[in-house]
């Protein structure tokens, strides 16, 4: 792969070393994000945003300094390097700190996201036509007051250089699309149904991801369901067997497995913002996280993964790591520094949102291993339960234990068959009890690589792109239809 910034990188790294860095790296980012939004037959936003910048990391006396800039004149390159070193030096003044680890790897490599349809081969007018047709198809009745369709495409070029001599070039392409409809019922209640997933399908790849979302095919069903939901009864309060569609299960994994297994969080580094973790490194090998059917692994090279890369943002090669095996905690998602503070392996899970953001541990691609059966076979096997899909609200505490999710839609299940459609199918639980009640995981035929484009973490908050691939699962004895008392 052709590189463009080797000379600038050399200048920055030389300056950093001259200023006192023991180690430094710089990553150049060329970012392009294309978006289009259609709402009520109007193409409202068509954007093509580009950014070119670089992120310098310098290590001084076991302390990191970071400086991100989009200025490319020689003085700015020197300033970025010098400021990164000065920033690192300032943190080194603090006593009793745990020193960061000096990287030793030297890697020369390149990576490109596989794709079958280059976004550049699809004209803007064709893209607009696809969204307009899907949005129109969602208007299946008069009570649909609005509908939407959108796509996003991210094309990111990265060049990573380090004082160890590493040189890594990557071109990462990610895309997503979704659609939905809002209907208002007889009592004025507004209900929105959309998807796929939590309002969109997001994966690694080119325009084929947008086509894979099947917007035109899905839109009429979203419209019909929104209409029914707007006048549907609320989900009765009670305890029942709960079947999570992949569009809900993936977010459940994100919040109650992916985040708690970020090692920086478990070590307290995220304590002020998104909290800590009920799972701690000293319980690896002994902590019962869920039932025997709970098998979770992280795979930075997962095909179609929304977080799939060739190398992470510390220049470490991707790995597949078992996080939970037969319900028992086996590992955490980690960086070089967090792994060094434990006896756990480094998992190449470091990502930054862009050149202006400091790299940190991210959940990347996590996978719930498929087991057996299909959605329909699980429904047929459920005497009395609730099947839920789509997401409209989610909330979990800062230890990642107590959660309450609000799917878009619920289907009552009676004697193995779908019954009434219910609105507000909220459910709540405690992480290990909930995963401990997992008794069915569907097989590979239901497997979908779900991504999310807006995972918030860090201060300042970074929007990360993560994957939680899964099928469909059933949980026994879950509290549903949670009500307010006020």
């Amino acid at each position: 792969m052709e590189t463009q910034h080797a000379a600038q990188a050399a200048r920055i790294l030389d300056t950093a070393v001259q200023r006192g860095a023991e180690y430094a790296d710089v990553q150049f980012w060329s970012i392009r994000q294309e978006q289009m939004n259609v709402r009520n037959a109007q193409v409202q936003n068509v954007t093509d945003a580009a950014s070119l910048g670089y992120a310098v990391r310098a290590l001084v006396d076991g302390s990191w300094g970071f400086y991100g800039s989009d200025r490319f004149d020689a003085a700015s390159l020197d300033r970025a390097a010098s400021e990164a070193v000065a920033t690192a030096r300032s943190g080194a003044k603090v006593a009793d700190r745990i020193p960061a680890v000096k990287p030793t790897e030297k890697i020369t490599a390149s990576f490109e996201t596989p794709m079958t349809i280059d976004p550049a081969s699809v004209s803007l007018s064709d893209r607009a036509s696809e969204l307009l047709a899907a949005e129109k198809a969602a208007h299946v009745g008069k009570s649909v007051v609005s509908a939407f369709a959108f796509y996003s495409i991210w094309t990111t070029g990265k060049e990573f250089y380090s004082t160890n001599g590493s040189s890594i070039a990557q071109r990462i392409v990610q895309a997503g699309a979704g659609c939905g409809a809002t209907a208002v019922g007889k009592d004025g209640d507004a209900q929105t149904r959309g998807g796929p997933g939590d309002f969109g399908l997001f994966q690694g790849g080119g325009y084929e991801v947008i086509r894979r979302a099947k917007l035109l095919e899905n839109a009429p069903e979203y419209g019909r369901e929104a209409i029914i939901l707007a006048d549907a009864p609320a989900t009765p309060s009670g305890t029942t067997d709960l079947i999570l569609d992949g569009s809900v299960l993936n977010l459940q994994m994100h919040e109650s497995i992916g985040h708690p297994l970020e090692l920086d969080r478990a070590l307290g580094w995220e304590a002020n913002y998104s909290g800590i973790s009920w799972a701690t490194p000293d319980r690896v090998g002994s902590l019962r996280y869920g039932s025997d059917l709970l098998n979770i692994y992280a795979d930075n090279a997962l095909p179609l993964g929304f977080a799939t890369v060739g190398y992470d943002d510390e220049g470490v090669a991707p790995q597949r790591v078992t996080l939970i095996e037969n319900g028992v905690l086996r590992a955490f998602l980690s960086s070089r520094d967090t792994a060094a503070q434990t006896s756990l392996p480094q998992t190449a899970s470091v990502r930054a949102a862009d050149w202006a953001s400091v790299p940190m541990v991210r959940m990347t691609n996590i996978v719930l291993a498929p087991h057996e059966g299909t959605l329909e076979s699980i429904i047929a096997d459920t005497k009395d339960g609730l099947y839920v899909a789509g997401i409209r609200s989610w909330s979990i505490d800062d230890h990642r234990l107590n959660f309450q999710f609000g799917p878009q839609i619920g289907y009552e299940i009676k004697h193995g068959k779908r019954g009434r459609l219910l609105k507000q199918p909220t459910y709540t639980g405690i992480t290990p009890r909930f995963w401990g009640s997992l008794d069915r995981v569907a097989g590979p035929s239901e497997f979908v690589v779900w991504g999310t484009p807006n995972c918030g973490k860090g201060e300042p908050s970074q929007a990360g792109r993560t994957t939680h691939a899964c099928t469909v699962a059933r949980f026994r004895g879950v509290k549903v239809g949670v009500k307010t008392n006020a």
Partner: protein
Amino acid sequence: MRDQDRALSIAEKALRFADAEQAQVTVNFNQQSYARYARNYVTQNLTSDQTTITLTYYAGKQNGTTTTDDSSDDGLRRLAAAARAIAQRVPPDDDFVSLPKPAPTAQAGRAYYESTAGATAADRVEKLLPVFATMKKNGLSCAGYTTTQINTTAIANSLGIRAAFTGTVGGLELKAMAPNTSGYGEYFGPDYAELDAAAIAERAAAKALVSNAPADLAPGVYPVVLEANAFADALSAILTGINAFNVLDDKDSWMIDRIGKPIFSPNLTIVDDWSDPLFANPPFDPGDGAPTQRVTLIDRGVPKGYVSGTYLANKFKIPNTGHSFNFPINAVVKPGTKSHDELVASIDRGILISRTWYSRVVDPRQATITGLTRDGVYLIEGGKLTKTLKNFRYFTSMLEALKDVELGSRQVLTGPGEIGIPIVVPDAKIARFNLSAQTSFA
């Protein structure tokens, strides 16, 4: 201001290159520095220096938007050409009427402080050293960040809008942690010199040390005092529905059919006022440069109005309040008369909540919200704090909760929070607040 002039100059140049029927250029310079810490040392120490130039080109009702950080002439020419190319290829947006026209705009107050703009990495760490010392003295660990930021926005459009603003932000968030409890403190304002990190550390440490064995309490409906940060978070259920998009377009707001009706306590008044002295906000819409109007959102318990931006104001033929982000970005909750301690003292048996987390609106029409408490929940008995409690999940309609609310006398500017938008807010005592479950930890 040199940065404002430079930003406006770039915007005007890009506008000339666009040569459009209508066009708008926004230029942002953002320098953000953070010293982030955990376990009593700095874990992430960073600065980013970013230029963002956004151009929207209109060919009739067709439009295209492009963004770059390249402010060279060639970069701006490419930006304009790319936006024009998009606009010429996509279908029209029939709801678009016009960009805003120039209108009298108030002068901004003082928003730029050299103490903030000139702070170095060493200065930020220096602010943290007494924090770490206080934690160690008390056997505590801490996590949070301190930040200094310089933000410049300049907007120019083809109809003559010219607006520019530079503001600084200084801040600290601090979570003090004992093995089983925690306490929280924060400061945000334009002047970093005003940040007394040592004092915040002492208060956060004292809250963490109220007791080391958090107690259980049955979930239920209790009188609560929500400290300012927690009250701001709970209010997000109200503030997110108080705009023209949710009321008129999406029809999914609690305001629908309730405007003009006395549905809240007469103690509750919320306005959107960029000129509030605790803010350092621009007097114009940072989305398109239209002047920002002062809007009374809730007046003594009666919902009065909602905010709007140019696009929806034109579409629905309503006044443009200068809020194109569809959110009251300058929200101010008017204070009451009682101090924090007096609010606590007025409760015979209830709960003090310091901070909340992961609040999400479950039902926009009822302003129903759920979230979790964190970093300091205390039992109030006989008007005094008697125990630290384990955390709770709350799940309540804020329409119901705000029927009986009493506000504290001291307003503060909150941090960006999860919504990302600071507001000015006092503490609040709510007579009936539903805590639907208790967690196993504090």
